[in-house]
């Protein structure tokens, strides 16, 4: 592998990891609080559509991003309502949320800017310009030629690690996910804490979806999230519910995705479909090797009934 190949690969790894990292960081917090959300895929889809649509309507990708975050929060609110307050099965509710996101994003898209025959131009984020830093060999393209959202999510990962590990609120979230009865007895609002964590997960999934449509690709396509929501859930397991671990897990997947795209071009005699499969095969493989060794939050997916 020559240097140009490797530099391109690492740069692409950051770009491709970003949407998954957004979603996975949010999911890690939800799960730490004891709520399983397998509807991430649907939230990302809604975020991708709302982000693009918001950008088209307002002409600003920033307002599009805000709209996507709001839409992600709204989706999470549904999950919080039915799972926390009506205590339905969290897995089935998550499946419903995925289907809902598929429907809402496809319906909205065909009703709005997807209805015309001509392509609508979606205002997208510009890549940040670091001036001279971007010209530094190797490090420049790998680290200093990305969209603002790529740096934002890296900062969020570090901040979230600090928040979860070092603050009282982080401790409260972990307590609620490990032993909700004890947390309740010590005066913590279990359902309120869980709701807040779920909404954070929704905001992050919405932002991850918006990154796809208004930063990375610059377009909305139906079902464009293509399983990234589920890979995000897998990355939470690989990262052991730790923000830094999740960061590395998603970077690994970003690198694998970047590698398969490049390997396609380098090996024209191997059918490209086998390269496209690669990240999905890796996700299964990693689950197989790491699931047994991981320790789930003790109260994950268990409903909590506040005693009265």
């Amino acid at each position, binding site marked *: 592998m020559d240097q140009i190949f490797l530099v391109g690969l690492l740069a692409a790894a950051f770009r491709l990891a970003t949407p998954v990292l957004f979603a996975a960081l949010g999911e890690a917090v939800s799960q730490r609080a004891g709520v399983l959300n*397998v509807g991430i895929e649907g939230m990302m889809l809604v975020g991708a559509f709302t982000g693009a649509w918001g950008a088209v309507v307002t002409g600003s990708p920033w307002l599009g991003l805000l709209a996507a975050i709001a839409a992600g929060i709204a989706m999470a609110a*549904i999950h919080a309502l*039915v799972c926390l307050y*009506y*205590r*339905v*099965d969290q*897995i*089935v*509710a998550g*499946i*419903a*949320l*995925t*289907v*809902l996101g*598929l*429907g*809402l*994003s*496809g*319906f909205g*898209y*065909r*009703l709005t800017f997807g209805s015309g025959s001509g392509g609508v131009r979606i205002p997208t984020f510009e890549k940040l310009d670091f001036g001279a830093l971007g010209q530094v060999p190797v490090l420049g393209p790998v680290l200093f030629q990305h969209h603002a959202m790529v740096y934002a999510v890296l900062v969020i990962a570090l901040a979230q690690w600090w928040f979860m590990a070092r603050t009282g609120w982080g401790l409260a979230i972990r307590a609620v996910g490990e032993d909700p009865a004890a947390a309740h007895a010590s005066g913590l609002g279990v359902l309120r804490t869980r709701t807040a964590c779920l909404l954070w997960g929704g905001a992050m999934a919405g932002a991850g979806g918006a990154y796809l449509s208004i930063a990375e690709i610059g377009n909305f396509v*139906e079902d464009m999230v*293509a*399983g990234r929501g*589920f*890979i995000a*859930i*897998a990355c939470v*397991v690989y990262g052991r519910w730790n923000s830094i671990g999740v960061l590395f897990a998603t970077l690994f997947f970003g690198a694998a995705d970047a590698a398969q795209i490049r390997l396609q071009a380098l090996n024209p005699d191997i*059918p490209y*479909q*086998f390269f*496209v*499969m690669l990240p*999905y*095969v890796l*996700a*299964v493989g990693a*689950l*197989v*090797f790491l*699931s*047994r060794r991981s320790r789930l939050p003790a109260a994950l997916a268990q409903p909590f*009934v506040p*005693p*009265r």
Partner: protein
Amino acid sequence: MNWRFPLAAGRTALVAAAGAFAVSALFLLLAGQDPLRAAFVMIGGALGSLDAAYEVLTRTIPLAILGLGIAVAFRANVYNIGADGQFMLGAIAATVAIQATGDLGGLSLPWLLAAGAVGGALFGALAGWLRARFDASEIIVTIMLNYIALQFLAWLVRGPIQETVAILPRSNLIPEPAFMPDFSDGQTHAGIVIALVLAVIVFAVLRHSVFGYRLDAVGESRPAAEYGGISAGRVIVLAMAASGGLCGLAGAVEVAGVFHRLEENMAPGAGVTAIAVALLARLNPLAIPFTALLFGVLTVGAGALQRQMGVPFPLLWIIEAVVIFAFLLAGVRRTRPA
């Protein structure tokens, strides 16, 4: 999940119908359409003519068989989201098997169907084994396997088994004796009989066999089942094999009954619809053909809505999500802790 409460099932259906109507009306208004007119278009489009009714029946067949497959897994609390992938593997195995042997006369169709079931069963069992042996979440694994199957199929129909003229991404036609008997000049086919027979068989197996008992035991509580001497791991693998086998059979039935060859996108979105089909039937196999018929009507009706009124087809998925939420909420019992 209890067999003995038709009342509860009626309540689910009522809540689901009310929710689906309310939400559909809301989204139709958003699309600037009159909900009442839309209802007429939907019903007329799905049941207004013989042609439409045949199409509904043809759409119902895979939904019913896939729904049965989902129900088997869900009863054991194994969340098989991989119906689409197992369907594809079934269709692939069926096509490859019949093309490998060529015309087998009267045995052609049974051979094709059996191969499809085995293909789906192996793919399902793989996910079950990874869950039982390595604790790998079957939800994520089956979704990942869906994407893998999609690419595998895409490669096959462009590579090793592409049609001889090599124009479209699809296989050659299968030998004619392997075609499913059809009705009314091929407008629908005998797959509906297979679906109904399967519903009875699956009901009998779940209700009256040891395997069915073990599924329910594992579904209620894995530790309790283990304590009672049931190997939960084995039950999970078998549940996924049976579930995948049914989904694979659905793929084989589509090959034999509708397409007569292997293609891409033979049943887009069917795996997800089948989850709604199974849940609305409260996982009762005897109810599944009816809920599948309902979703067959909705699918064809949503198509008519798109063509005649320009209402986006994804409305169907929104309705499906509402139905699943309604199923969940109808099952909520207001419990007060002691």
